[in-house]
């Protein structure tokens, strides 16, 4: 019957219009996000940030991380795997976005651990045992000490180093830069200055692969 054809065609046209509009919108948004990140590139890398991997690596991943954020803990080993699969070619730079309650104290502890040369051990311990010290999306600072001690840190020195004004300055600067770059969720990744088009491990892998391929050329 003609009416059925009319109905089906109308339904298909509406759906098609929706899909095309959504695709166009996403392409444009991605482009805008890229331009925005490029325009604010100065806020992306600071001298004070801890980093892993060779300084001359062709691919630099800047990660905004909250040690109390579950997804950050879940993504960290995945990023390490990608780095291990491409030895010497990727550098990871960590920026702090301690959005969870109490998390800024944990960041301060990490920065103090850096003074003892055990930053990555401390970070990996805290991320791996995150369930022990994050409750109801709030960091329980009192519960990180045994973990840090197990990671081989001198707790007494750590606690006195934590209060250093330069550590507060690092956290403040990172939060400010997160705001400038419109980082509202963690983890947020920038690969050679480019933001993730969509959040997820696959888009991240793809972005890293593209950057690796571009550097080979």
């Amino acid at each position, binding site marked *: 019957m003609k009416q059925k054809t*009319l109905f089906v065609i109308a339904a298909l046209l509406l759906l098609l219009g929706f899909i095309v509009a959504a695709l166009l919108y996403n392409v444009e948004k991605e482009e805008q996000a890229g331009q925005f990140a490029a325009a604010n590139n100065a806020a992306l890398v600071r001298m004070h940030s801890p980093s892993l991997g060779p300084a001359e690596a062709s691919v630099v991943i800047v990660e905004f991380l909250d040690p109390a954020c579950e997804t950050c803990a879940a993504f960290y080993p995945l990023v390490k795997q990608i780095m291990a699969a491409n030895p010497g070619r990727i550098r990871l730079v960590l920026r702090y976005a301690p959005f969870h309650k109490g998390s800024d104290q944990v960041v301060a502890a990490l920065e103090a651990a850096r003074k003892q040369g055990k930053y990555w051990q401390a970070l990996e311990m805290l991320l791996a045992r995150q369930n022990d010290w994050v409750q109801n999306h709030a960091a329980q600072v009192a519960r990180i000490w045994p973990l840090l001690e197990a990671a081989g840190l001198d707790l007494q020195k750590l606690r006195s180093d934590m209060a250093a004004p330069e550590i507060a300055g690092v956290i403040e600067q990172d939060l400010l830069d997160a705001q400038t770059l419109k980082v509202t969720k963690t983890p947020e990744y920038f690969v050679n200055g480019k933001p993730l088009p969509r959040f997820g491990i696959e888009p991240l892998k793809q972005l890293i692969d593209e950057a690796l391929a571009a550097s080979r050329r």
Partner: protein
Amino acid sequence: MNSARSVAPGDAAAAAWMPIFGAWLIAAASTLGALFFGEVMQLPPCVLCWYQRIFMFPLVLILPLGLFPLDPRVVRYGLALALPGGLVATFHLLLVAGVVPESIKPCTQGVPCSETVIEWFGFLTIPLLSAVAFSTIIALLVAAHLRSRK
């Protein structure tokens, strides 16, 4: 839409098909539009927007049930959704316009309903689109009712 004073040739009830189809078109376009704002542009809907969605989305499924086979009584079920939806949209418009005072604004937390997130051509806002869609759907359904009675 012009209410049907002209009697379509042939079966009188069949004349109701087009207006119901038109109402469905508007409901479907509005639903996809709302989903575009919410899911693609990721604009969080305010409370009043949610109520309007609640009345708009089911129309997309219910109206076609009255189209195949043609059942003019679907107008009753359609109006049961479109009329309250139109009321909420009107309330929302009045709220944005500032006619309804702040104190009876039902949403103070989350996304304020009085906030204008989109303004096209200087006047076209989401609540206005919604109010126009609901009133057109109501008019078309009433037209379908009148035609089918002829």
